[in-house]
């Protein structure tokens, strides 16, 4: 007899992102095989897996870099076929790359509003950039995320630490109304305190109702930051756990052996050596 499963997402509407039976092939190479995946509003889902497991491919399908060979992608409940990352971005699917978030030599406000500049208007015609307003708003956001030693948004990004940059990039995405946020190793090479800062920005984004996909190798970071952990191995999803349902040791075991710790209902991979 099956136990009654309470769906935690009941009544929330469709997931923000849903992949159904998605496969991705590059020539002979099968990067993803028959993957089902959901991302809901207000959750942080970590993708865990070794290099080449298919995490990046999965993310790139969501962000519109790749069109899947087979299967369906739905965004906010509607079937989508992204032809470019710009299309995905148009639906509020934003990516924050570890080292491609901000332009170091450029001032904070120019970075923050890059591509979404505010203008002064003369009648209906936008005339010139509204520098003061952009500076003010950028300073406000900096203060809100606890970067207080910066005196002016006219200063350069290069004055920020790595964690501060990541936080600012995440904050920027939230500020401009992103619904889905993809983070590629946002805490790589960061100190403990810096990592904490980034986690705070992630929590804030989640509390605003964003769905966040978080890629990382670091099992402990993943365990701290994620509400749900999805393990990818050889192009398949081999496990999906709510945090607390699985221990760190089990996750490490999964990663190193490349197969579920205990017998699971998922099919084993054909060539799954341990």
């Amino acid at each position, binding site marked *: 007899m099956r136990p009654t499963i309470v769906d935690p997402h009941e009544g929330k509407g469709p997931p923000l992102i849903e992949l159904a039976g998605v496969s991705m092939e590059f020539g002979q190479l099968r990067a993803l095989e028959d993957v089902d995946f959901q991302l809901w509003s207000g959750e942080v889902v970590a993708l865990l897996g070794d290099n080449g497991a298919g995490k990046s491919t999965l993310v790139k399908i969501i962000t519109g870099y790749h069109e899947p060979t087979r299967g369906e992608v739905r965004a906010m409940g509607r079937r989508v076929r992204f032809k470019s990352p710009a299309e995905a971005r148009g639906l509020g699917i934003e990516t924050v790359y570890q080292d491609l978030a*901000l*332009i170091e*030599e450029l001032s904070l406000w*120019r970075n923050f509003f*890059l591509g979404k500049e505010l*203008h002064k208007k003369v009648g209906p015609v936008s005339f010139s950039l509204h520098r003061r307003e952009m500076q003010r708003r950028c300073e406000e956001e900096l203060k809100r995320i606890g970067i207080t030693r910066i005196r002016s948004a006219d200063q350069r990004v290069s004055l920020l630490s790595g964690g501060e940059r990541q936080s600012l990039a995440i904050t920027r995405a939230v500020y401009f109304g992103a619904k889905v946020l993809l983070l590629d190793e946002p805490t790589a090479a960061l100190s403990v305190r810096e990592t904490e800062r980034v986690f705070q920005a992630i929590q804030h984004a989640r509390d605003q109702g964003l769905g966040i996909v978080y890629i990382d190798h670091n099992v402990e970071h993943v365990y701290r930051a994620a509400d749900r952990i999805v393990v990818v191995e050889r192009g398949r999803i081999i496990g999906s756990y709510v945090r607390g349902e699985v221990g760190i040791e089990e996750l490490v075991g999964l990663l190193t052996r490349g197969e579920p710790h205990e017998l699971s209902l998922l099919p084993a991979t054909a060539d799954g050596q341990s």
Partner: protein
Amino acid sequence: MKHFSDIVSKLLQARAFGAVAAMVILAAVFQTMSGNFLTSSELAGIAQVAAPLGIMGVGVAFLMISGEFDLSVGAMYVFVPILMGLLLTKLFWGVWPAFFAALAVAAIIGLGNGIITTHFGIPSFIATLGTYFILTGVTFMVTGGYSIDYFHPNALFTMLGATIGTEGLTVPFLWMLAIGGIFWFVLNHTRYGNWTFAVGGRTGVSRALGVPVRRVKTINFVLCAVLAGFAGCTTFANLSSAQPSEGSSDTLLAIVAAVLGGTSLFGVEGSIAGTVFGALVLGALETGLVLVGAPGTLYQAMIGGILIVAVIMSIRFVSVGSLLGRFGASR
């Protein structure tokens, strides 16, 4: 004392600082040596030398800020008026159509530079070096090395290159100020300017934020080429003669003006006002050396020295700035 250090750091941050400082030093030296450097006719002479360099330099600075180089500007500066002169004297076109046709050709060549660089991924250094040789070669081929004179007075030439008043102030100087003003506004106060800054940095960031990197760079190549051609036409109008040899040795002076004005060789940073000052410094140097009776050849040697000092100074200021943290602001 906080105020004082703020003012000092603001001054050092200003990208035009080096050019302004050089200007003051040159003026002091030449004034002391000759006693009549700061006269209206000498200043008009400076303005005359500086004007085409400044007009070209503005385009060069704009392109450099967006992370690309154009080594062909000097050749463009020579080629476009030659082309205009040929249309006037060989095909008997009117001045207006000849002028616009020549500028259109400049735009197409600039577009070519842009496409070669952004779509084929060839460094702009190499692409525009190629263009430089092609333009120089074609210029000599079609002229045989002789200048093209056009002495018929006309409204266009007056607007482009007339001399105003008795001291010899020329219209191109006003064009430099006007063009400088327009491009300063575009760079600092429009979205396109913001994108120009941004694409000079790591392009992945801009692309990820939806900035059309290739388009911005390509447009800046076109602007740079057209401004170089336009500068050439003002000289043509001013002298009533298009010279195939002029500019060949001065090919890189517009780039020197931009660098003197604080434009970074690595993109993102730069100043239009600084570039105009940089052009004025070059004008002052040439005019002043003539005034004190130095051999003409000294000019080039001195420019080389000044360029190296300027680049070292700009790199020093940047690194000192990031060390102290407080000088770090940019536009």
